[in-house]
């Protein structure tokens, strides 16, 4: 049986800072995965990736990542690699996105 299509988002790293960023429905970039535009089928995902790659001098290494939709309806990381990208290094909780979240 074919594997069910998991919803996807487009993500990459900011050229200047290197930060993990997510492509939004408004056509911009956010540091928060919850604000990422979600594609629910392969065709929409391909189109999303194409749009996200239109910023080659702002965001690099853009790819599609699988997500799950949380109870609040926002996308959340599915694979552990994507989860770490939303947080930062697990050995230093005071660094990366997790530190910003802790301050909020």
């Amino acid at each position, binding site marked *: 049986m074919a594997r069910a299509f998991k919803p996807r988002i487009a993500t990459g*790293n900011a050229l200047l800072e*290197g930060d*993990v960023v997510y492509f939004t429905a408004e056509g911009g970039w956010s540091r928060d995965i919850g604000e990422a535009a979600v594609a629910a089928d392969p065709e929409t995902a391909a189109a999303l990736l194409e749009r996200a790659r239109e910023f080659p001098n702002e965001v*690099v290494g853009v790819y599609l990542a699988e997500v799950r939709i949380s109870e609040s309806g926002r996308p959340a990381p599915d694979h552990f690699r994507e989860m*770490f990208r939303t947080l930062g*290094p697990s*050995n230093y909780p005071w660094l990366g996105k997790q530190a910003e979240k802790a301050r909020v």
Partner: protein
Amino acid sequence: MYRYDDFDREYVAARNAEFRDQVERRIRGELTEEEFLPLRLRNGLYLQLHAYMFRIAIPYGTLNSRKLRQLAHIADRWGKGYGHFTTRTNIQFNWPKLRDIPDIQDALAEVELHSIQTSGNCIRNVTADHFAGAAADEIEDPRPTAELIRQWSTDHPEFNWLPRKFKIGITGAPHDRAVTKSHDIGLMIVRNDAGEIGYEVSVGGGLGRSPFIARVVRDFVPKADLLPYLEAILQVYNLAGRRDNKWKARVKVLVHETGIERIREMVEAAFIEKKAAFKPVDPGFVAAIEAAFAPPAFEPVSDVAPRITPAMRSWMDTNVDAHKLPHYAIVTASLKPIGGTPGDATSEQMRALADIAEEFAHDELRVSHEQNVILPHVPRRHLAAVYERLREAGLATANVGLISDIIACPGMDYCALATARSIPVAQAIAEAFADLDRQHEIGPLKIKISGCINACGHHHVGHIGILGLDRAGVENYQITLGGDGTETAAIGERAGPGFAYDEIVPAIERLIEAYLELRQDEGETFLAAYRRLGAAPFKAALYPPEVTSHAA
């Protein structure tokens, strides 16, 4: 310490100016990422999981206080207050911004450091025995040779675009502390029957996806022939090495597929041509390099017996090694505090090490491939003071060579290539065996952890190797047993199915319990017991029937 001459200074300055221009062009959009990528890699700049990572070469692992203080300054100004010492004896800073890299390069040049050829398909930083110039068993300090190779290989036009990266390691002692047999070329300084000094040259070592121990291609190369001989090997590789498949492009695959006998014929044939065409290195030039590595002005033997406090005793057992002079010692500062990140040092720790080296140890420091920092020349009369100062800085954990002195690559906490985390596994194992008395009872044991098949954590040559993988979206850890990175080098054997993240520490605990039961006496190390008994009893401990049935 080798000092830059005018050529070196101008070369590095020109190279830094070139990269500054490339960064500016990238930011302006005049270079695409595809064009910029190989340029930034050649200058040690990676884009990792959360941010950029900047890798700085520490040639043959040698530092002095001035260089180390500048690294501390870079950590504070452009990093997050710490640096990570790597298994290639380099240092990496995470979190710098792209715009700042040229300024960091200029700051490095002020202290004669750079980031050239720390990545890319070129000849990388030459690593050497971290006890070089101090070890009692040394035939000759390997660092002048390493420096000669550095100068010869930097921007060498024939070898600037090799099929893949190329690593050279060198030891001047018969006890191989530099894992030379895991390098593309491993050099061991030896004496021939006539008493002349030369090199045993091995080729085709490497870890990663296809691990191989290097094979001896020639057992004695005279000193004057070394560079043309290396050129011959590189030429054979450059012409015959595969470029169609990244995973088969290292020289180890060429050696394995072609056979060492045929490789030897090809190298010897190329060597005849290379030697004929090679302009001999000016002996005065070689003498100047050797002079730069002359031993420090050792102090005379003192009548005063060194003060050894009871608190120092276990530290003396593990972190202090014999020096070639009986009134000196080699001290290893442990970058493996229990629960810490292997190889990480804060800027304060770097400054403390710089101060200690300057005050007590002839201003010399080394980085080891085992991710510790060494003070190679400590007068024994200063051992107590050095111990106290290291302890205050959190650098005196008495665990060097023991179960918690773990090599770990950055893994998925930083690395974009990683398939699983390494650091938290190292932390958890160290915490499970936190009791130093127990560690000393277990004795010499090398655990090495890699977060992907590329094996930066040297897991293949760990007595116990751990490889982190992604199994169906879950972190999973494979164990290898019986690896060895020394002159009796061996690739570890895979023990069996992998373990989940929360199962790996209990598995290591079972393994250690089994070893303690099985060893003949306290003098039989884990590796010796493994070699005597084979894998079976250790596998039985890793996969006991009750655990296996639960897992199934």
